Every structure is written in structure tokens, then in C-alpha cells.
């Protein structure tokens, strides 16, 4: 057989056949194939959630004491009351403000200091053990000190959240800076770049992954910092609502606040995930 048989796999567009560019064909997958798995995962998540809620509702009362475990209907009722009288919005807003301010302050300071200190190897080596020691302190232990320094207002909660976030972002960004490929730095030097070019065009983008990891994992800690601050001393915020409800033996109120807290956390997480996608477009293609 001297002739070659043309092999066709998918539709080859005429443009792709004539230019030297990448050959692009339709993946031949329908909407269901491309999104089917994601859809199934979401369906199962929803199913699991509904099952837990139904089970909780059924068991609460006949088997378990609602005084201790509350019940979905009780929680919904309490949330309804709080929405009606405005308690929910004012307190949630206070906590969200503390989280966001604390997060921005801590993350900003952490990232900035990491970029300033981490490239100076000697300074970093000197400071390293001290930083690790400070990082290891449970931030709750700082709460009493912060009350003395900053009072029991919003400042104390913001700073408590900020300190927690600071260390996580700082250490992750510094790790990112230290892991920059030596070859890339040399490449910029060969192109005649100076320290400034290396910092802006290599270190900064290369350590973006470290920074984003720091940002992502520090979000729950911003929330922890703010709520712990409120639990220790406050008269506003979601932490205060938990304290107040439990003092009145109001389990519905405690659980209702916990639900709100997890929603706040989920929203913040989603925001950072979006940010990460935007900044990491250069990562490998999805297979």
C-alpha cells in the first residue's frame, strides 16, 4: 500500500490546517460531559445537607434534648426573629468589619514585610527563630494584653485578627520569595537587569503563589481572631451574640450565630478563590 489513508479525528478547522499555529479541534464533549461531574458533586452536597437537617430535626425532641442540641426549626425561628428586629444585621456587620479590617491590615503588613526582609538572607536568618517563636504563641493568649493596650472596642478585635493573619501571610510569602528559581534571577541579570528588576519582574510574580496560599489559609484565622476578641470582651458582634445567648441558655441563639459565622467564612473563601484564579492563569492547562 503506497498511499496514506487520511485519519480524521474530530473536525479540523481549515485555518488550523494551513497555519503553523497550534492545532485546535472541538473537544467533542457536550455540556453534560463537561459539567456533569460538577453537577453531580453539587447534587450530592445538597442531598447531604438536606439529610443532616432532616435527621437533626427528627431526632431533636424525641431522642435528643433540644435544650442542648437545638433544632433546625428552632434555629430558623431565631434567625427570623433576629432578622426582624435587626439584631442579626448590626452584629454581623460589626464582625465582618473587624474581619475585613484585620485581614487587610495583617495581610498588607505581612506581605510588605516579607518582600522587604525575605530577600535579605542575613537579616532573615537572624530574625527567623524569633519570628517562629512569636508565630507559635496562641493568639488567644494575647487577648488580655490587647485589652489593656487598646481597650475593649473594635480596635482590639481588628488587631487580634490582624496579628493572626500577619504571621501566616508573612511566613508563606517569605517562603515564596525564598523558593524563587535561581535560574530566573540569573536570566534577568543576563538581560542587564538590576536588583530592582529582579525584585519586580521575578521575585514578586514568582512568590505570588506563596502570597495567595497565605491569604487563603489566613481567612479563617481572621474570623477566629475577631470572634475570640468578641468572646473575651465586647457588647457587639457575633462573638457577643454567642456569649449572650449561651449565658441565657439559649442554644437556638448559639447555633443560629454559628450558622451565620460559617456563611461569612464561605463567602470570604469564595472571594479569595476568585482572586487566586485571576493571578494564576499561567499554571498548566486543565487536562
Amino acid at each position, binding site marked *: 500500500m503506497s498511499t496514506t489513508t487520511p485519519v480524521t479525528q474530530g473536525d479540523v478547522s481549515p485555518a488550523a490546517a494551513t*497555519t*503553523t*499555529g*497550534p492545532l485546535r479541534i472541538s473537544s467533542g464533549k457536550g455540556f453534560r460531559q463537561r459539567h456533569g461531574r460538577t453537577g453531580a458533586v453539587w447534587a450530592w452536597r445538597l442531598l447531604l445537607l438536606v439529610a443532616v437537617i432532616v435527621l437533626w430535626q427528627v431526632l431533636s425532641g424525641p431522642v435528643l434534648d433540644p435544650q442542648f442540641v437545638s433544632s433546625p426549626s428552632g434555629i430558623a425561628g431565631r434567625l427570623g426573629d433576629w432578622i426582624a428586629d435587626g439584631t442579626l444585621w448590626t452584629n454581623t456587620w460589626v464582625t465582618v468589619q473587624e474581619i475585613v479590617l484585620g485581614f487587610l491590615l495583617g495581610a498588607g503588613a505581612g506581605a510588605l514585610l516579607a518582600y522587604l526582609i525575605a530577600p535579605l538572607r542575613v537579616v532573615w536568618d537572624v530574625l527567623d527563630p524569633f519570628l517562629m517563636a512569636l508565630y507559635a504563641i496562641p493568639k488567644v493568649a494575647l487577648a488580655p494584653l490587647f485589652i489593656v493596650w487598646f481597650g475593649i472596642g473594635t480596635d482590639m478585635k481588628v488587631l487580634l485578627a490582624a496579628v493572626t493573619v500577619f504571621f501566616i501571610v508573612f511566613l508563606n510569602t517569605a517562603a515564596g520569595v525564598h523558593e524563587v*528559581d535561581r*535560574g*530566573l534571577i*540569573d*536570566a*534577568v*541579570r*543576563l*538581560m*542587564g*537587569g538590576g536588583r530592582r*528588576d529582579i525584585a519586580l*519582574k*521575578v521575585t514578586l*510574580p*514568582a512568590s*505570588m503563589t506563596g502570597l495567595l496560599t497565605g491569604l487563603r489559609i489566613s481567612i479563617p484565622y481572621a474570623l477566629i481572631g475577631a470572634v475570640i476578641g468578641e468572646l473575651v470582651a465586647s457588647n457587639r458582634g457575633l462573638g457577643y451574640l454567642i456569649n449572650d445567648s449561651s449565658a441565657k441558655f439559649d442554644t437556638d441563639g448559639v447555633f443560629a450565630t454559628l450558622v451565620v459565622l460559617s456563611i461569612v467564612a464561605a463567602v470570604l473563601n469564595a472571594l479569595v478563590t476568585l482572586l487566586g484564579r485571576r493571578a494564576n*492563569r*499561567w*499554571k*498548566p*492547562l486543565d487536562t
Partner: protein
Amino acid sequence: MSATVQKAPERAAGDAVLEVRGLSKHFTKGDEDLVALRDVDLRVEQGQFLVLLGRSGCGKSTLLNLLAGLTPATSGAITYHGSAITRPRTEVGYLTQHDTLMPWRTVTRNVEMPRELRGEDKTERNRIALDLVQLVGLSGFENHYPRELSGGMRRRASLARMLCSDPETLLLDEPFGALDAQLRTELQGELLRLWQGSGRTVVFVTHDIEEALVLADRVVVLGQVGRIVLDLAVDLPRPRDPDDIRVDPRFVDAHRRLSAALKEGALR
């Protein structure tokens, strides 16, 4: 001849571009020093296509790193047009053995980087980068990120980036080692076309005898710790067709001598 010389017309052929005298390089590991190069002397003339031939681990890459000014020598002197090399110079382009494309930049943005660092106009450097991307056969991949390219394509993008700085001296460390034979021949031809009549000096490192003979004016065979085993002038006529040249008796003779020198170089 002088009309085709774009670079430094005041420099005549035969002048030393790079001069290496008594060069040694040690790497400290624990309480021992590993000797990568010992007492190397080398003179590279203006406009010359020099191939450094040697087996793995003979210090070829170390020598190029030193010539590029990336690492300081332990002892000895390297001069570029008479002045000592202490740090990288923009007139010298260096294509390293490993890919150093910025993974967060597209092909075009990577290629234009040398001109970006010089602060050149955006549209102008973009135009030059696009021309070079086409030259190395990467049309259609202008906006792809390095990780979306094959190893050979990344190599070509790196070559384009080096050429973008328009260097007068090229240092190439096994630039075509990872490419398939076809592409290798194509890019060798492209490199020769760029070099011929431009007055540029090329120092090309390889372990492939045939590649050395297709490209070089002069082949220097390096043995252990950079010892020069053989310094051979290659007087094969140009242009050299890689397929025809193989049967040329002078090629066969040179091949035999280089092969023997490589074997000898492995001994200490």
C-alpha cells in the same frame, strides 16, 4: 564585507573578544573543594564560531557561566575586549542549558523582556518580539504560557529571547540538545544564517561531534577539569549541508580526530 558588519565595525577580525588566562573554578562542598576548571587558557577571536566539545562533567557549562559573568572565578582572568568581566554584560547573550522563561509571561512577553528591561518603547519591542517568534517558528503560540509548550518550543522561545537583546557575542550551552533531529538541523541553519556576515562571535557548547563540525570554524575539545585536549581549525567549505558534509573525506577525518580526542580527554 564591512557593509554587512552591523556590530562594532571598528573591531577587526582576529582581535580577541574573549580572553581567558589561568582560569580556575572551585566549588566548596563541606571541607573539600571540587575542582571544576583548572588553569584554562583560551582565546576567542572576533567573528569566530567556536565550538567547545566535551563530555558531560568536563566543566563546559561552568566555563560558559564564567564567560557570561554569572559566577566569579576562583583564580585567573577573563577579559571581554580587554576589560575584565565581573558581571553579566548586555552585549553578551547567553542561552543556558536549562529553560529560564518566566512561567507567568506569554511567549511574546518573554521574548521582549530584554528590551523591556532596557526601557524600550512598548509597540517597538513588541514588533521585534513578534518577528523573532516567527523566525523561530512559533507563530500561533504568541500568547501561550511556557508550560503549554513542548520542551523544543520552549528552547526556541529562549533562543528568540536571547536574540531579542541583539547581542554581539553569543554563548550557547547545548541549545539544541533536546530537539528532534529535523528541528535541530533547521535551527542550526537558522543560527548559521544569523551569524554569517554579521561579525558576531559565537561560543557554542555541545557534546555532539557532528553538530560541532557542521557549525564550527574551530573546535576546542575539553577534557577533565577543562584541560584543552585538541584545538582544531575546521576548514570545511560553507554553507555546509548537514547531509552532504557527512561523506566529505575532510569531515570524516576531523570526526575521527575529535572522537579520539574525546576519548583521551576522559582520562586524567
